[in-house]
């Protein structure tokens, strides 16, 4: 047999957002002071709703059941006679529930504000964008004749160095063999220990060191950043890379610090 309550509330049931929503409905329906909820009444009504939902074969979300047990727990605590008067004022078992309800109520009310605002602002209409063609800035390449000249001289000098200084070249070839990442990391850590910011190009310069050495130096920087001994920054494409010592050290792999054989 369906209760009157069941019939009355069939339509409403599915619309509760959650246990707080249902509790609020009951509080408002009974015109109850939220700060002094008659737990017995509310718990009974709450359970009636859950029963009604069951009768209607509605799926009851677990949160509703959790709230039911919370209410029953509070109810039992309220009904138990206090055995001995406690010196401090005993905590009201409803307090936590009330706090949560008030918090929920705040946003519930704010939902209405949002909904009203949406209603109003759904009445303004926008215009589709005009098709504005993409403009090209092809003639805005930043160039300088002076850079053109110095680039040329630079590349010539590099070439001359490469071709003329055979002994240097041989030394570089020999140096290649010696470049190890681990050694580079140690070298870099040694520099960073001094606590100063390092310009990458000052330490690893292609004019002074072999490409392999510079490349390995770069890998060393990445490793050192990864283990948290430094941070890197570069302010422009192709610009200087600054390596700054860092305090946030993570565990360092002892292998890195171990001497090479």
């Amino acid at each position: 047999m369906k209760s009157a309550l069941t019939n009355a509330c069939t339509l409403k049931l599915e619309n509760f957002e959650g246990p707080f929503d249902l509790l609020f409905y009951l509080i408002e329906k009974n015109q109850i002071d939220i700060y002094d909820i008659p737990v017995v009444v509310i718990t009974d009504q709450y359970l009636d709703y859950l029963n009604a939902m069951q009768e209607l074969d509605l799926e009851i979300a677990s949160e509703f059941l959790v709230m039911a047990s919370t209410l029953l727990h509070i109810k039992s605590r309220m009904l138990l006679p206090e055995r001995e008067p406690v010196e401090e004022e005993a905590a009201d078992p409803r307090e936590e529930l009330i706090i949560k309800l008030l918090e929920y109520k705040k946003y519930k009310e704010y939902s209405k504000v949002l909904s009203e605002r949406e209603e109003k602002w759904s009445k303004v209409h926008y215009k589709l964008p005009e098709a504005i063609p993409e403009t090209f800035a092809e003639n805005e390449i930043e160039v300088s004749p002076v850079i053109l000249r110095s680039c040329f001289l630079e590349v010539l000098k590099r070439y001359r160095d490469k071709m003329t200084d055979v002994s240097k070249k041989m030394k570089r070839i020999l140096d290649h063999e010696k470049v190890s990442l681990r050694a580079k990391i140690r070298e870099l850590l040694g520099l960073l220990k001094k606590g100063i910011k390092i310009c990458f190009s000052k330490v690893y310069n292609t004019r002074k060191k072999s490409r392999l050495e510079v490349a390995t130096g770069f890998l060393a920087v990445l490793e050192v950043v990864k283990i948290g001994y430094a941070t890197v920054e570069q302010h422009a494409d192709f610009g200087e890379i600054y390596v700054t010592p860092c305090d946030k050290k993570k565990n360092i792999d002892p292998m890195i610090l171990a001497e090479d054989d």
Partner: protein
Amino acid sequence: MGSITDTEIIIEAVLFASGDPVSLDKIAEIIGHDRKTTRVLMSNLIYKYQNASRGIMIRQIDDGYQLCTKPELDEYIQKLGTVRKRQGLTPAAYETLSIIAYNQPVTRAYIEQVRGVNSDSVIQKLIERNLIREAGRDDSPGKPKLYETTEEFLRVFGFSSLKDLPPLEMNDIPEVMENVPLD
């Protein structure tokens, strides 16, 4: 209509052509003024539109400006028959949005704590509608995702910035906000 300067004419044309919001920086660049001057200029212009006999007005959304029709003329625009009606939000969506709006960035656990129910799907729907977005991760254990509102949120609800959110009644129980556990 108050006197309209040449700069204001340019701004009107630019906002009209754009349709979408145009950033303060872009407007400043186009009219050749600094940000501060441009901001004052835009405030004046918003006021002029509001008070002039115009069918359109300027909205500020964050640091952008957009032309739109005045809300009270909606009934006439509806007669064009070209306007699609927006699908409204569910009560769950409003609830979740207001919790996010006032506490952003905020975790799902916090939202569920306040609402008392699982909020996974409603969060997904709000993301799909571009009203909220992920905003990094919290430092707490498990590094849960954080959520915040979007510009679209401001647009849909008519706020020019988050500072516009109507104040919450905080005098109920002040410490409540601190007490909601985050786990």
